[in-house]
């Protein structure tokens, strides 16, 4: 039964990706595997399908092969987690329109999860807020869920990776499709320290309607949602709506008045969203400090220095922080004199361990 049910959910998942609307919620009490026995006419009668969708259903029914579908996933190291599986996130089952199956690249982290969302087009301070939030949550071991898009999303993922915490990226396209291309590197790092997930099967294109649909998953995975920066008509606000519908806490980062990028998030605040006026205070309220924190610190500093660096470069690297660190501060932290420090910094920069920011200070980069 379970295998057949699983196959049915996979089938429904592929069907939904083509139909573009929720099939499963309209099936109501029907057992999912009835779709295999239903004719397109019966189905259409229940859930109102367009002609094109009916055609899609027919096509899929003739070509669908559960084993084949799963095998192709496995070749890419991706798993399918369906509604019938125990691994399926509990919170996600509760939302009105749960995806029948999630394709997972990586491991879904357990424990508290916070979503950080915002516009792709955002201000520098927005990027910084998202990164800092991500880092603070990551250091507390809180999973940060976001959408692997440019702007706020990417910054939030970067932040939690810096903080060495778990993170989940939810795609609006096929699980193996990297969009935007620029995030290729980030995609790999997120899947390694958490998971990249999608409700869309291999190769599905990043169609415009899939992104708002994806937002319900982001909201559904977390009990807390943070909007960093959102313009008045931003997808992030859709996510916030979903979160409110499923009874999650919604927080927002206040932005300067009159800034277009912040109008949506500020409006959320006016409507009663929680205000993040201090990052540590926020982190404390979503994930109160626990005893195990000191251990985490140890692990972090241990992991911090990559192997294979010449000793003097490693010494210099230990003095470079994740916040911009001036050359003189690096010198006093690492105890390396200026004449040896400067060549070492250039070498570290060329090797990609540190970056130089606009004001000549150095920032630690997460090694690739």
């Amino acid at each position: 039964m379970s295998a057949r049910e699983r196959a049915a959910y996979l089938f429904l998942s592929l069907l939904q990706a083509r139909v573009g609307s929720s099939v499963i919620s309209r099936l109501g009490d029907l057992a999912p595997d009835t779709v295999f026995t239903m004719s397109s006419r019966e189905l259409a009668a229940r859930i109102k399908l367009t002609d094109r969708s009916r055609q899609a259903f027919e096509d899929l029914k003739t070509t669908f092969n559960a084993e084949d579908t799963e095998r192709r996933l496995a070749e890419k190291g991706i798993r399918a987690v369906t509604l019938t599986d125990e691994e399926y996130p509990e919170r996600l089952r509760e939302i009105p329109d749960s995806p029948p199956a999630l394709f997972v690249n990586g491991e879904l982290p357990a424990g508290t999860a916070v979503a950080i969302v915002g516009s792709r087009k955002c201000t520098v301070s927005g990027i910084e807020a998202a990164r800092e939030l991500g880092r603070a949550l990551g250091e507390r071991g809180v999973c940060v869920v976001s959408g692997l898009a440019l702007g706020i999303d990417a910054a939030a993922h970067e932040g939690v990776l810096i903080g060495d915490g778990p993170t989940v990226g939810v795609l609006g396209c096929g699980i193996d499709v990297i969009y935007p291309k620029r995030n290729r590197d980030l995609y790999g790092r997120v899947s390694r320290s958490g998971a990249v997930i999608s409700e869309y099967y291999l190769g599905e294109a990043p169609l415009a309607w899939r992104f708002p649909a994806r937002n319900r998953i982001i909201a559904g995975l977390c009990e807390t949602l943070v909007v960093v920066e959102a313009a008045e008509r931003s997808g992030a606000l859709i996510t916030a709506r979903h979160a409110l519908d499923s009874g999650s806490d919604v927080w927002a980062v206040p932005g300067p008045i009159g800034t277009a990028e912040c109008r949506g998030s500020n409006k959320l605040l006016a409507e009663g969203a929680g205000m993040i006026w201090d990052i540590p205070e926020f982190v404390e309220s979503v994930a109160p400090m626990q005893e195990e924190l000191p251990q985490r610190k140890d692990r972090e500093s241990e992991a911090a220095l990559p192997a294979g660096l010449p000793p003097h470069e490693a010494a210099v690297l230990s003095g470079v922080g994740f916040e911009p660190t001036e050359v003189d501060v690096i010198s006093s932290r690492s105890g390396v004199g200026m004449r040896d420090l400067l060549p070492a910094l250039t070498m570290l920069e060329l090797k990609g361990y540190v970056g130089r920011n606009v004001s000549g200070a150095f920032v630690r980069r997460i090694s690739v």
Partner: protein
Amino acid sequence: MAVCRARSLTLAGIDALPVEVEVDVSAGLPGFSIVGLPDTAVQEARERVKVAISNSGYKFPTKKVIVNLAPAHLRKEGSAFDLPIALAVLAASGAVPVESLGEAGLVGELSLDGGLRGIRGALSMAEGARREGMPRLVLPESNANEAAAIGDVGVYGVRTLREAVDFLGGRTSVEPASVGENGRVEEEFQDSDFADVAGQGFAKRALEVAAAGGHNVLMSGPPGSGKTMLARRMPGILPPLTTQESIEVTKVHSAAGEGRGTLIRTRPFRAPHHTISTSGLAGGGSNPRPGEVSLAHHGVLFLDEFPEFSRTTLEVLRQPLEDGHVTISRVAATLSYPARVTLVCSMNPCPCGYAGDRRRACRCSAGQIERYQSRISGPLLDRLDLFVDVPRLTREELRETGAAEPSQAIRERVAAAREIQTERQGMPNSTLAGRRLREVCAIGGDAEALLSRAIDRMGLSGRGHDRVLRVARTVADISGEKDIQVEHLAEALNYRRSSLLER
């Protein structure tokens, strides 16, 4: 009565040209006129000379007195002809033996009581006197020390017209002046030593490299980060002036009327305000005077708030930075002042000053910052080799474990590096370009690989490439290495412009 001649000198640029003062006293209506392209100050010499002669106890001839300043085509300016005119008049009227004027060079300004006042350009005059074969130079006492630095010419300082007459007539003797001993270089700089600057090791190292290779520097940082304090200490780490350089510096300062009365032995530091005019910076005016860039000759020209200087003002710096001198063309004459300077500029990273600062937010928009940064003209930026970000550090960050290095220790390294350069190519590394650059700064193997990686990853331009090589050469010279090694190149790469400034 015969014509009486006295020899004198006048300043053209920072050099002195000989001038013959001829005085004819003849029968006729009493009068006193000066010919030979005199300017107003020279014309006014008539009144000063007349009164000073009577107040010194001599009689001004009640005859027709004509003074000719030869050569007639050369424009004469200033008050230094007072003394030769007065002495020639006295000789022509018989009050002083004619032969006593002899071949001596005479310069000095008279006051109404017959006293002598100091003049501009005494050192240049002494140099001119030597060149023109004048055996001795008589000038106001306050200028004597300075003029004596030239040697080979007997320099005699006198205080009054009467003293000059007595000395020339052989009735009294005056000790030839000698170069005044002024403080040793160390003492001169004791108020501004690098040891007093807490922290800022990076900026100090950058200034050391700049000093060692004669490179021009741009420091960028928020207000209060210590840019000016650092720049002021730059002359103290440059090698001491050679005698020849001392003379040049003194000549310029003396010609500008800023002489200290003695030979200047310390490297000048000039920090003109950004409201300075073009001629204030480059020199000029109807009575041409050296500008700030010449007054900083062999020293440091510090341009604080670099982007605030007007573009046209800064454009005049291009010639001196290229050729080491400024040419001023006027209707009357074309003058040239030396101007070989190390340029140290400082700027805030943005109009409000706090871009990139950790503790204070910048209020500028990206557009404002870009406009601010692009105010500096490209050609001038190309003359800058080192770019240093000077951050504002907290007190804890400034606290250093060991004591900071004193300027003298840095100066010794700088001097050694300069010596290597002089021996190798006869000029500082900052002037290397083209084929010469490729010869002197040849790199091989690992260094070559490093540089090409840097070009890819750091987006180095062609100019940036040359700049890095020049600076790497200097870093290697400081370490006393014959070839540029990987670490020298790697250090030099730190002195590139931050992306905020990249064009």
